[in-house]
């Protein structure tokens, strides 16, 4: 194609320009895929918490609480009108050496498994079966923890120094369950006791331990209203409806999103400046040619379109190569992160298309000024240019 021939007239220069855009798009794809993964977790989390009310200890600071809550409060909560079922649960960190992670930390979730039929967030199993309250000493492992724990159905895994038998492995949910291990409530209570300072252990009743209740509303009851009702009726607890979770999740990701996309945008702008530079030089070097084209009948519009097309092609090639490299980087990073349960990158179709489109638009915008300048040259002046 003629456009390609014109673009690659000065091979080294145009390759360097394309490289500039490639790097910008690479940054956009990598950062963007982290943001996409986070957005997905947010969406998953939103679904996870919708339709439920979560009750935690009154002293808990955030909605994600690991403060102890007494099970004795359960009947009180259940008696509030609009409550269909209440399930007690314990959540605690899978490993006590808390390593930093961007996403959710790996958790142990123990539950008395009441109200399973009312649970709107359905999970499926890639291997094995679901846990029942009779499965003391057994666990179900979330998709992202399989490699880290070397989990296989029928075999044992070590959790907090104890052996548990794996009865099931969850399909990927793209939210909390992926990085969780599920067990019965008594098992979780025992593990939780390890976290209680030795001095206080005698004061705590192990069988009474929980960190949160899941409250399932009756059909027709709004979760937010129910949360308010519970807070009024039952002292010493804090009930939160789904919107509070969604708020909290969204808040923490909003800033991260802004930072990630901000970095990517800056590198893309640098790429854009590179295109402006190259196109300006190209126009300058081809001043005479532009004069000739106008002399043989090119209109201003045709000249502009010619140079814009070249700029768009530069953007497109840079965009596609940046996308391919970014996708490779994300895939490799995810594969390496499988072992520690940290898959942070997700290249979505909308990110891929968006990145290439953005690169083309960047090329067009950057090429606009040089193209317009080219079009305004007077033929006879341009022809005299050496």
């Amino acid at each position, binding site marked *: 194609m003629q456009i390609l021939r014109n673009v690659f007239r000065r091979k080294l220069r145009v390759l360097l320009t394309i490289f500039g855009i490639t790097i910008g798009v690479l940054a956009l794809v990598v950062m963007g895929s982290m943001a996409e993964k986070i957005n997905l977790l947010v969406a998953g989390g939103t679904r996870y918490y919708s339709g439920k009310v979560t009750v935690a200890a009154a002293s808990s600071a955030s909605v994600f609480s690991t403060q102890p809550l007494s099970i004795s409060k359960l009947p009180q909560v259940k008696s509030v009108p609009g409550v269909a079922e209440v399930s007690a649960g314990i959540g605690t960190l899978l490993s006590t050496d808390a390593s930093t992670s961007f996403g959710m930390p790996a958790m142990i979730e123990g539950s008395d498994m009441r109200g399973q039929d009312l649970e709107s967030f359905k999970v499926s199993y890639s291997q094995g079966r679901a846990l029942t309250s009779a499965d003391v000493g057994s666990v179900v492992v979330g998709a992202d923890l399989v490699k880290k724990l070397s989990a296989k159905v029928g075999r044992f895994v070590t959790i907090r120094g104890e052996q548990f038998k794996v009865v099931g492995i969850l399909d990927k949910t793209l939210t909390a369950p992926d990085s969780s291990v599920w067990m019965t409530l008594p098992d979780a209570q025992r593990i939780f006791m390890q976290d209680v300072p030795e001095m206080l252990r005698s004061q705590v009743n192990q069988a009474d331990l929980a960190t949160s209740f899941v409250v399932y509303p009756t059909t027709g009851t709004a979760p937010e209203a129910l949360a308010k009702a519970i807070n009024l009726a039952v002292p010493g607890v804090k009930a939160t409806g789904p919107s509070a979770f969604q708020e909290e999740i969204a808040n923490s990701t909003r800033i991260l999103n802004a930072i990630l996309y901000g970095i990517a945008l800056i590198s893309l702008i640098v790429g854009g400046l590179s295109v402006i530079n190259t196109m300006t030089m190209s126009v300058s070097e081809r001043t005479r040619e532009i004069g000739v084209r106008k002399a043989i*009948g090119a209109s201003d519009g045709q000249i502009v379109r010619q140079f814009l097309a070249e700029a768009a092609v530069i953007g497109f090639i840079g965009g596609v190569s940046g996308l391919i490299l970014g996708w490779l980087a994300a895939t490799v990073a995810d594969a390496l992160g499988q072992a520690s349960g940290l898959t942070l990158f997700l290249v979505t179709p909308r990110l891929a298309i968006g990145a290439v489109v953005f690169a083309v638009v960047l090329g067009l915008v950057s090429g606009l000024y040089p193209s317009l300048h080219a079009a305004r040259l007077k033929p006879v002046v341009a022809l005299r240019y050496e």
Partner: protein
Amino acid sequence: MSALVSGVGIHKRYVLGRDNFVDALQGASLEVEDGEMAAIMGPSGSGKSTLLHILGCLDSLDSGEVWLGGRRVDALGRQELTRLRRKEVGFIFQTFNLVPSLTAIENVALAAQYAGRGNREAREAAREVLSQVELSDRENHRPTELSGGQQQRVAIARALVNRPKVIFGDEPTGNLDSASAADIVRMMREINRETGTTFVLVTHDPEVAGTCDRAIHMLDGKVTPRVARSMTPLRQPGEAG
């Protein structure tokens, strides 16, 4: 009037800086008949190329009139000028001015494309004109793969492809050896006779002038009546009027 091209009292001044200017044309007037092949000659600085560019609508004038085909063209807007360059006027240059990244046939087709013809049609038209200038076997060569004479033939083909009424040439043989120059002149004469296309050529080359129907002489920015000069200046390659 049957004159195809006429310039009336054209003035053109180039301002080069404060108080520094050149009056390239000082009331130049001429007429070229339809179907004529005319040469414009004169010493350096006489304004030949400037006049040619103005007549060919590549440059603007300060005052005066330019008429092409019975229509006044010196005050046309950009769109009209573009249309003129596509359909009515062809131009060839001393330094050929082919687009270096395009092959011969693509260079010629380009002019047809700018005139609105589709890719295939333009290529066909280009092929036809290239055979007229006897370059069919070099269609797919780039300018760097062609000799000077061959490049100028491509340029002639390009000027011809949209069947203009008049072709203006600025020292068309200026960069050619005598053999190629003679070739080009012969070709232009043939085209003029076969198609009736008018040619207006600025030249230093007595060969070219000799082949033309008429020689128009210029001095100091004006057209002069033919004065018997003992020597026409030697052709100096690379010199524009």
